[in-house]
């Protein structure tokens, strides 16, 4: 059944591509690819890869082993080539990928966090895929938060792999014990609920809402909700926005919320040491802001907590709407210096195919790379109660500035900026003033 669909999609794709044009090398001179009626849409057909090995860098915690195996299975069956998957850790990943892309034998395909694609694209490490855009899209409309950072100066440098958002994950039993039985729908309701949870659990190491100070992905939600932004482009220049009155209001509210409902220790921590899922699983937190996969991590860390004990809801904002969330996720990039471009493109095409997206990616708990696949998942009624909140939160999403210089600001810059405010080491105004200077000079260099 699945095979026949793949064949159908593949056949349709090949036919469409054949009808459109002949192959294009997708070189740098091709400025108007896809823009006019002589567009050179490339086709991606299974090349003969017998005896060859494709190296794929996958990030730890991204697509599941099963999904990668499903992609590899089809790839190996179609091309005869082997796939070597190397799982990478997140620490210092920007440095690691940059150095890997610069070598003469880079990995062929790389899993890149969506916020970091523009960095590698701008520096010329990723192959220009503009000519193959339609062949990769396979009739689907990609999520903007994944596709936009992959487009630099109108050229496509990476193909959306999957998306993810964060919602509130809370322990229903802890909340019920404190007398809260329904998920809050407004910011005030949330605070009222947390006040009850906090009153019921007075221990100093208990957090009604565990929100580590360095967790800037979550902190940004307050700034966006208040109408602020990291940076905006004005007359071709980036202007940092943390000092704006909106961002200041958001930061002040975030600090109050963090200091009120999260343990004092958490002010200077990130989500990894200690692992916030472990903190939650140990009963030291009533709620966290987390990704979908963290539900599995919590139930694994403490088998006494069952999946049905956990509730999720999109974080309400003081604006009255849900807080905008960062659309996290990954894109597949192809190293410009890779020696097997045709094989790499074919592998990425399979990974981005509706079949993999609608089945494997959704069952991994991720949001698929296209609006069609996402809608299909919501309509299909197969989503669990918890998953639905994630798909809903994704409706109101934001991304980091699409600048090649952005990535170097994330670590340790953004972490330390939010930490200094949460801990009270600096006032929101002082911290923003210094950080805006750094953001401006970095983005505009």
């Amino acid at each position, binding site marked *: 059944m699945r095979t026949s669909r793949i064949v159908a999609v593949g056949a349709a794709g090949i036919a469409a591509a054949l009808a459109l044009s002949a192959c294009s090398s997708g070189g740098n001179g091709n400025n108007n690819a896809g823009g006019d009626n002589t567009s050179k849409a490339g086709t991606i057909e299974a090349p003969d890869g017998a005896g060859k090995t494709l190296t794929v860098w996958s990030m730890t915690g991204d697509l599941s082993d099963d999904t990668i195996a499903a992609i590899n299975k089809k790839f190996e069956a179609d091309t005869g080539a082997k796939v070597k998957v190397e799982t990478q850790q997140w620490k210092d990943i920007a440095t690691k990928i940059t150095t890997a892309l610069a070598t003469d034998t880079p990995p062929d395909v790389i899993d890149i966090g969506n916020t970091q694609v523009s960095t590698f694209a701008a520096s010329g490490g990723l192959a220009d895929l503009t000519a193959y855009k339609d062949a990769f899209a396979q009739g689907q409309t990609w999520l903007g938060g994944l596709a936009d950072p992959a487009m630099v100066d109108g050229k496509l440098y990476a193909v959306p792999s999957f998306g993810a958002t964060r919602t509130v994950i809370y322990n229903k039993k802890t909340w019920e014990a404190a007398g809260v039985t329904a998920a809050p729908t407004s910011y005030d309701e949330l605070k009222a609920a947390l006040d009850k949870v906090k009153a019921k659990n007075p221990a100093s190491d208990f957090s009604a809402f565990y929100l580590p100070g360095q967790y800037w992905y979550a902190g940004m939600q307050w700034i966006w909700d208040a109408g602020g932004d990291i940076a905006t482009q004005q007359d071709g220049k980036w202007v940092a926005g943390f000092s704006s009155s909106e961002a200041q209001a958001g930061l002040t509210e975030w600090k109050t919320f963090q200091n009120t409902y999260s343990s004092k220790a958490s002010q200077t921590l990130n989500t990894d040491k200690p692992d916030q899922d472990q903190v939650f699983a140990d009963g030291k937190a009533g709620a966290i802001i987390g990704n979908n996969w963290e539900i599995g991590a919590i139930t694994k860390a403490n088998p006494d907590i069952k999946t049905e004990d956990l509730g999720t809801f999109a974080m309400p904002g003081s604006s009255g709407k849900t807080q905008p969330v960062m659309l996290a996720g990954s894109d597949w990039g192809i190293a*410009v210096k890779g020696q097997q471009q045709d094989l790499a493109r074919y592998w990425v095409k399979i990974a981005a195919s509706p079949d993999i997206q609608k089945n494997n990616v959704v069952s991994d708990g991720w949001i698929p790379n296209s609006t069609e696949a996402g809608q299909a998942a919501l309509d299909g009624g197969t989503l669990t109660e918890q998953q639905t909140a994630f798909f809903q939160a994704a409706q109101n999403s934001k991304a980091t500035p699409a600048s090649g210089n952005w990535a170097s600001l994330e670590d340790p810059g953004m972490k330390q900026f939010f930490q200094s405010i949460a801990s009270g080491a600096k006032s929101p105004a002082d911290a923003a003033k210094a950080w805006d200077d750094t953001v401006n000079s970095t983005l505009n260099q």
Partner: protein
Amino acid sequence: MSTSPATIVAGEGVAAAPRGRRPRPPRHFSKQSRFAPLWLLSPAGIVILALIVAPIVFLVYTSFTDYDRRTLFTGEYNGVGLQQYIDIFTDSQFWHSTILTLLFTAAMVGGSLVIGIGVSHLMTKLGTAMRYVVTIVLIFAWGMPNVASAQVWGWLFQPGYGVINWMITQLRVFGDQTDLSWWNSTPLALINIWMLVVWQAVPFIALTTYAAQTQVDGSLIEAARIDGAGEWRIYFSVILNSLKPTILLITVLSIIWDFNVFNQIWLTTQGGPDNGTATLGIWSYLVAFNQFKVGSGAAIAVVTTVMLMIISGFYIRSLLRSGEDL
């Protein structure tokens, strides 16, 4: 540094006199023997050329260019003359990092020397069994990779869960410090890193000094005691004086190591908060490999190297001089 050869020549009159008179074996300048040293040296020489000299030459060259992230892929860069150096010297972060590096190095070298030499003296007073225990403990601390020890340090001092914070709270002197964040304030972060570095530097210093201290001539101590010198007087005037060459050597090595401390800082604070613990090494890494301004980072590294050469040059000179005096 340039005066050190002169020092050697001056000292030779006394120290090297017997050696100078020794009759030389007859030399046969056959073709083979003339080139033999070259052949013998070449494997090591090639490795040094490829892995040390070439990168340094490239580093210095890069510091005169605008080499950046883009260059890694395209290979394009432009010579910018001294611009990178001008930019560094007008950057307030450079002066902050320089002063921090100098003071922090002095604190680490001073701390590890005082504690290390103290431990060495302690070991001379211990019984055999206890001395073995201390030696083994020291070697364990020394043998731990500093990446691993920085990780353990992170756990020990973690706000909320750290054992050290718990112990400090148990002292009931400083109040409840369970949630103390050592890496959120510059002074505490520096104290924390200082402890980590000194803890791992002490074993080498203690064991080396102890080895030297066992060689101190007992008759000197006895003579001093007969002359009525107290134990403190004996320690400072006789023992420490005999240990001088060893201590000087250790000092030079410690300065070089502590000046370049990187892992322990990067793995605990990443140079934060607000570049408060960004020594020259950390700052140059941030510039070169976080912002990928490789040219600028190279210039910082060159300046750092020159500073280190000047400082250690002074000590190496004294070291050579004291070595000749023996």
